[in-house]
């Protein structure tokens, strides 16, 4: 359990969200996001530094190690806001690095002067992270690393510990692929890379926390896509009436709202349970449940949003398209729904 007190988290979250307004404009403008698409790594290093200046990367670093020692509730509140703003900078990945490295967290990454991402996923769409270290060196593959194209440092998590390697270190190869949101996704190839491996007993928990934070980002994304759609439904007219007055669309919109609220409730309750010390079985189950709801909701809401926007919805100039493409890029990162359900189904044996 982190240093966050049982009553402090609401105030802490408010402070974090206030400061994060430097990254996510309060007027909801997506102009910055639109402009970054297809520009190299798809994000702005200056904004990474800005977030570092705000101390965001120290959220999950224990107070004893010089961090803020905040909880998952605060982290999820932040990630939700980043999702609302479709923020492309790898802030979640750097927070994760901080939690893994604690006192070994390099200063220039903590304050955002260097861009740092975390590489942990052994194979696509899983939560496996044990691979990647052979005989005291880094060897193997790490998948699905957003933002790595613009990274200076990479925190590599393995079963033998966590290590920080410069992006240009010998034996480090990044295979970059363009993603639909205008960014890049990397696969990291490690060939006998020398590195100091720091033991990391809490790694499993950090990976799960990152998964939950990911679901929180998808929550924010879904909420904002839905809000844009409601605005459109109220304004756009057809046959002389606002289309939002048509009952069939109203009922479908209601359904989206319910699913978003389920996701919100699940993420918030799971974060609270983990902050308050949920046991490992429940922690794993509830994290997967949030991932599942998050993946389904982000895709469902964004595709229904397109449909409700009509022909406008399939144009690049409508903002709703940014949400569709971000949802497509991120929804399945930690497993597509079938894969997550398969993980959960394994858990049934013991629970039964």
């Amino acid at each position: 359990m982190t240093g966050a007190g049982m009553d402090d988290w609401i105030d802490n979250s408010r402070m974090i969200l206030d400061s994060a307004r430097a990254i996510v404009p309060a007027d909801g403008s997506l102009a910055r996001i639109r402009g970054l698409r297809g520009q190299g790594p798809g994000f702005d290093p200056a904004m990474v530094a800005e977030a570092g200046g705000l101390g965001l990367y120290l959220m999950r670093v224990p107070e004893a190690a010089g961090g803020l020692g905040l909880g998952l509730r605060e982290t999820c509140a932040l990630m939700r806001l980043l999702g609302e703003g479709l923020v492309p900078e790898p802030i979640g990945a750097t927070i994760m690095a901080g939690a893994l490295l604690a006192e070994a967290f390099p200063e220039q990454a903590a304050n955002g002067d260097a861009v740092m991402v975390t590489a942990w996923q052994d194979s696509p769409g899983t939560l496996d992270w044990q691979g990647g270290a052979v005989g005291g060196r880094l060897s193997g593959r790490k998948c699905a690393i957003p933002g790595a194209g613009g990274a200076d440092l990479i925190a590599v998590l393995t079963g033998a510990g966590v290590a920080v390697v410069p992006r240009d270190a010998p034996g480090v190869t990044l295979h970059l692929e363009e993603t639909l949101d205008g960014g890049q996704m990397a696969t990291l190839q490690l060939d006998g890379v020398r590195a100091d491996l720091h033991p990391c007993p809490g790694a499993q928990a950090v990976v799960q926390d990152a998964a939950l934070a990911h679901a929180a980002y998808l929550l924010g994304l879904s909420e904002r896509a839905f809000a844009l759609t409601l605005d459109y439904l109220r304004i756009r007219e057809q046959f002389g009436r606002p289309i939002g007055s048509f009952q069939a669309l109203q009922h479908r919109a209601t359904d989206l709202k319910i699913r978003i609220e389920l996701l919100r409730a699940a993420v918030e309750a799971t974060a609270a349970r983990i902050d308050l010390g949920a046991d490992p079985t429940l922690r794993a189950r509830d994290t997967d449940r949030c991932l599942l709801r998050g993946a389904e909701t982000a895709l469902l809401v964004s595709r229904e949003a397109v449909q409700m926007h009509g022909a406008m919805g399939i144009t690049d100039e409508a903002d709703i398209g940014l949400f569709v493409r971000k949802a497509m890029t991120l929804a399945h990162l930690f497993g597509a729904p079938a894969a997550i359900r398969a993980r959960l189904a394994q858990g049934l044996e013991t629970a039964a």
Partner: protein
Amino acid sequence: MTPDYTAMSDAEFRALIRDFVETEYPDIPRFPLERLHWDVVKPWYLKLSQRGFLCPTWPVDRGGMGLTAAKHLIMVEELERFGAARVHDIGPVMLGPLLLKYGTEAQKDHFLPRILSGEHVWAQGYSEPGAGSDLAAVRCEAVQQGEDWVINGQKTWTTLGMDANWIFILARTDKTVKKQAGISFLLVPMDAPGVSTRNILNLSGEAEFCEVFFDDVRVPLDHIVGEVNQGWTAAKALLGHERVFIGAPRLSASALARLEHLARHMGQWSDPVFRDRFVALRCDVLDLGDLFQTYLDRLRDGTEIGADVAMLKVFQSELYQRISDLTMEVAGPASGLRHPPQGDRRLHAAATYLSARPVTIFGGSTEILRNVLARAVLGLPG
């Protein structure tokens, strides 16, 4: 001599309830999906009453348990876990709290003990033909004549009305004002001259509801709760907790537990295709639980419950139906059997499926609730 439940730890209290139900539950069905009639369920009602467990939310000095919301929930969980039948709870759950809030001392002294003793079995008379989804449209009429109210009209969809000897009704007592403002809340003995009933058989062929007819029925003037023409306020007050609890995940959770039992029985528990669906439903139940909890927290805090609470009921009722659909699939050809296979009610897919029909119709139909949500919560134009 009521023990101080508030002082007990949650675990102690849970153990107390569990022990009670396990040792005292009479020889009547467990996990019944249909509502049991009074002649069957009465022994359990009396057991609960004798032990002081019938009315968990009433204050201790009125024969209740004075439970906090959290302890009440523990009690509900333990009873449902065991599969205890639902008793005739209109008196304990609806009329009692209403009298406690709006009743006269005389009404409390007279009626509350008779609920506890089982002497009075209450039914609820709200719906009418033409006033189901739109309750404020009630036409059943009460006119003051001398010392009596004279009641004429009809109620319908009265759950277990055939078992009741008292009914409370919403009646129109002023036709000159707008709909909600002319309604009063009256208490009527069902053996009064002029009261008659007609059973309504449900889809399973069981007499679950009835119509109640009032033909010049006379009740004394003091058989009114609250002020004349203020019945709507009282009726709405009753709906506060109800609106939250009608969306509780427990109906779906118990259906899911039965589904697991059935799947094991049918040898499908380890089938990956089944498990994929089961897990999806289980996540729905758990997510609903988290959302439900946010409303429980609001109840506990005294935060006002808004129109958005209808989301719970919409999702829970449709989820229960989806679980019932899968239950039918797992049962295969046995899904058409009228009686529980091997006498095990938890294997009775058809009962689950049939019980899942009314949930999206009563207590606010899904269609109407979605209209309300779209307008009041999403702010979409009418």
